[in-house]
């Protein structure tokens, strides 16, 4: 009974707590370990108020309409590109970030934010193939190529047991890579080829799914998925915990894949940029950064974090790709309004079944 009263009274308490220093973090859900947050709160004697989005585009839409009150955001590079160009971010004060030196230089000074004027890399994931090792071995299918997602010859054996991401940018990137082009190729003719490849493969796919595919993969209803590496890491943990006879493994396509780097940035109207910098510096410490990787299997651009990461995760080539794979990975770039329109028209056609 007390808990129920507490439940109703909690929102009222939130008004009282306003007096404390607060850092507003707008982040993906489960994208920071709870222990890390607690340690930061103790260190800075402040409160971290977290709100969540589940998609870069939701973040962009909300900020484009003028929402404010957030200090730190964690957009993926292409979304960050859009925010920078749209003047939505506050430049960071590098003098407040002595730990910036911990970041692997390969991830700094990217085309999205040369000189890292606005951003600091946070975590990464790859968009690859995830599969049920038992079933795929039975069917004798390759897992190191996008052909298993797009080629009807392979797909025949997978009919109704494969899903792809419900994202036009990710799916087009995979199709473009499969055709041998860059994932950021802007040639409309190449896009048309990619759309044709997708339409040919579509009848074999169970669904375009960005949210529930992990469940279905772990349970064994779906056998092969186009999805994110950290999702597959967790799916495998869950499958083992549930005692399933199969493992969920990654397949790294030899044609290459998309790398998604998420970055910490500060919103231009951040109420507490001082706390924001403290938070960034805190997360740049190897120990703190490693906690997330150990929790969800995300890639980590922090050199100093490597010694704190579990060895089995370090060895995983889908989380820490080797040099050969790295050279084939690409980060997605943002498109112009006109390009987005063309892309969306193709996507609508694909999804409408024409």
């Amino acid at each position, binding site marked *: 009974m007390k*808990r*129920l009263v*507490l*439940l*109703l*009274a*909690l*929102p009222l308490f*939130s008004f009282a707590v306003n007096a404390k220093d*607060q850092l*507003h973090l*707008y982040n*993906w*859900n*489960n994208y920071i370990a709870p222990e890390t947050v607690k340690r930061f709160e103790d260190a800075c004697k402040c409160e971290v*108020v*977290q*709100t*969540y*989005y*589940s*998609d870069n585009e*939701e973040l962009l*839409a*909300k900020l484009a*309409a*003028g*929402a*404010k*009150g*957030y200090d730190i955001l964690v957009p993926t590079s292409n979304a960050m590109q859009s925010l920078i160009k749209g003047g939505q971010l506050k430049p960071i004060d590098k003098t407040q970030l002595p730990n910036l030196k911990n970041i692997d230089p390969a991830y700094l000074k990217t085309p999205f934010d040369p000189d890292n004027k606005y951003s600091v890399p946070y975590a990464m994931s790859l968009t690859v193939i995830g599969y049920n090792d038992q079933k795929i071995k039975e069917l004798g299918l390759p897992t190191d190529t996008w052909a298993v997602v797009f080629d009807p010859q392979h797909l025949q054996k997978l009919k109704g047991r494969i899903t792809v991401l419900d994202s036009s940018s990710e799916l087009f990137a995979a199709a473009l890579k499969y055709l041998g082009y860059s994932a950021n190729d802007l040639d409309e003719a190449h896009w048309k080829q990619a759309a044709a490849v997708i339409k040919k493969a579509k009848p074999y796919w169970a669904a375009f799914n*960005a*949210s*529930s595919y*992990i*469940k*279905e993969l*772990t*349970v064994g*209803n779906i056998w092969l998925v186009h999805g994110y590496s950290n*999702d597959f890491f*967790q*799916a495998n943990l*869950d499958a083992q*915990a*549930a*005692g399933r006879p199969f493992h969920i493994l990654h397949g790294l396509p030899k044609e290459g894949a998309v790398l998604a780097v998420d970055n910490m940035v500060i919103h231009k109207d951040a109420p507490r940029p001082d706390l924001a910098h403290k938070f960034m510096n805190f997360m740049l410490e190897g120990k703190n950064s490693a906690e997330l990787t150990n929790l*969800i299997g995300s890639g980590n651009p922090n050199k100093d974090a490597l010694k704190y990461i579990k060895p089995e995760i370090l060895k995983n080539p889908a989380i820490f790709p080797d040099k050969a794979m790295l050279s084939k990975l690409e980060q997605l770039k943002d498109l112009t309004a006109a390009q987005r329109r063309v892309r969306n028209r193709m996507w609508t056609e694909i999804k409408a079944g024409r």
Partner: protein
Amino acid sequence: MRRRPVALWTAAFAGYAFLYIPLVIVVVYSFNDSRLNAEWVGFTFGWYDKLFHNEEMLTAAGNSLLIALVASAVSTLLGTMAGVAMYRYRAKLLSILVLTPIAIPEILMGVSLLIFFVMLNFTLGLVSVALAHIAFCIGFVAIVVRARLAGMDESLTEAARDCGATPFQAFMHVTLPLIMPGVIAGALMAFTLSIDDFVITFFTAGAGTVTLPLQIYSMIKIAVTPEVNAVSTLLMLLTLALIVIASHLTPSLLRSD
């Protein structure tokens, strides 16, 4: 002579079964010892335990309940007024304004309200969410109330007026009791809509405002764990308890006869 037609009972029973089979799964799976919760693995109370230590989730649930109570109360009041006005005074503009929020895609309404609040420099928070919810709930209440009024016997109200009652008295003592089932139906719909709303709430919530749907939807790409089933089950039961208590405290108000 009151007969109990078998056909009706069977059909209604089928309806209840359709409603409750998924719900049984929701409740049962809140005890499922599996993070991804896609298949039954084993029994555990662990998720309820986790839930009671999860301040974020509990606050979100509390916020949702609070907003839903306020939004349904205000929108029932305004919606009943609108329903009466639409029926009695043939208010055309009101009819359109009442029906359109139901038709308009939520994402458009969410974005437009956000832009509007930002223009007014209105701090986003629980209040902005409640205001938004009221706006789209009014229509549901109004339509049900008007449907209830349709075909209602006006002579009763006229008789009351002839006996010297003011319009207000006639409304409170004659009309309102007669339309009460419609008002209650509307209130229940408004509450349901508010407690479960995601899209509009997403856009109108402030930097620290979390409601339960916002919390849950943000988990959609990682794992909607049985903890969510647990909080859902509890919230459902809590709401039921609140309503049962309320109806016992105000029997005269809520009875329709």
